[in-house]
């Protein structure tokens, strides 16, 4: 009994220590990547290639999901708002929910699944096949050559993807509200324009997407770099990227929302 309890405590302590150590390593890794920022911009073709893989190839999924999310918001919003006789506020509702929350958050979740997992798998496989080691042997810093361009490619892509998600969602809401349900097109746009504030809504949404971009790509490149060099290691690192990045995005969204939209 006593020994069992002791072993439990031991395991708890070891787990906590491991988690704290990993967090410390991840933070140190983040600082190291930031210090290699000039390398990422001096080797612009590498960063451009990463923007291509993280951003351009995510375009279809982002635009399609944005459109569907906007259309669903249009249908649900119309149903609720028409009960209060204010279905003209549909444009406001769709746009505010997209620009403030759904655009940055859902785009970041999709980005974690689509681009983050690919980054982790690529870096992890390079580590498993000892390509990273080989680079170091040739006096090429893998942080500068591989990690920093990936990081900045992801961070640059994310705000664009979130903006595209919101814009296609607004269009989806327009399709459902105006074309399908017969709302007045002028009411849709003018109510939206009088309620959406540039600084409070759009700039804050942009800040959110930038923070989420940093979080997701940081976790993705770190998990890749920290992979156990085995086949199982790569697969579990990829899974961890998606899980951790999604949780971190949702938690960070709560914190940011508390600061940004606490109510007047």
């Amino acid at each position, binding site marked *: 009994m006593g020994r069992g309890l002791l072993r439990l405590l031991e395991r708890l302590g070891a787990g906590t220590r491991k988690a704290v150590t990993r967090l410390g390593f991840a933070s140190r890794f983040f600082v190291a990547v930031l210090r290699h920022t000039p390398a990422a911009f001096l080797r612009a*073709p590498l960063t*451009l*290639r990463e*923007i*291509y893989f993280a*951003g*351009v190839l995510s*375009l279809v999924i982002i635009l399609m999901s944005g459109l569907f999310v906007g259309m669903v918001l249009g249908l649900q919003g119309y149903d609720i708002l028409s009960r*209060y*006789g*204010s279905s003209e506020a549909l444009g406001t509702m769709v*746009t505010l929910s997209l*620009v403030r929350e759904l655009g940055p958050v859902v785009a970041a979740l999709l980005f974690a699944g689509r681009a983050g997992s690919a980054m982790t798998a690529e870096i992890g496989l390079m580590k498993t096949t000892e390509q990273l080691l080989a680079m170091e042997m040739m006096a090429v810093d893998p942080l500068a050559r591989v990690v920093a361009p990936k990081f900045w490619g992801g961070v640059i*892509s994310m*705000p*664009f*993807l979130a*903006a*595209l998600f*919101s*814009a*296609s969602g*607004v269009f989806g809401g327009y399709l459902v509200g105006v074309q399908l349900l017969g709302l007045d097109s002028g009411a849709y*746009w003018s109510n*939206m*324009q*009088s309620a*959406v*504030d*540039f600084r409070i*809504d*759009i700039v804050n949404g*942009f800040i959110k997407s930038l923070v989420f971009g940093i979080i997701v790509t940081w976790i993705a490149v770190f998990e890749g770099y920290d992979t156990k060099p085995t086949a199982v290691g790569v697969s579990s690192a990829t899974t961890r990227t998606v899980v951790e990045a999604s949780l971190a995005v949702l938690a960070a969204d709560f914190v940011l929302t508390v600061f940004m939209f606490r109510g*007047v």
Partner: protein
Amino acid sequence: MSRIAIDVWVGIFVAIGLGAMVFLSLKAGNLLTTSNAPGYRLEAAFDNIGGLKSRAPVKAAGVTVGRVENITLDPITYQAVAILRIDRQYVFTKDTIASILTSGLLGEVYVGLDVGGDEEMLADGNRIGKTQSAMVLEKLIGQFMLNQASSLASEKK
């Protein structure tokens, strides 16, 4: 894929991404017409502001001419003091009446300015003398019921 092809695709991506941001700023956020001109401040004291919130619009003849910047309670008179930020291009007479109105039954609450005939104009920091408080629906209904009851009572006599 060749470098030039990648460059082209990244260029297209960044261009439509920027396009989406411009679309959100201009079409949804209406950046052009909400001028960030500094404007000037007016004060107005109300007995009851009802559901007025800061950032609510200030309208004259239905046109938005400014926004409510801040609402505080005067510790001496126990009146609510709303600070209105008015666009610089609009000036109002000294005898302007500020009233708290609602667009529609459940719509947004805003401050309406009714201009008088005074020759002097309100300047930065001035207080609007005549104000009309928000209509509180519950009070109105209560008054209506009371009137009904008293008229019924007088009919019976």
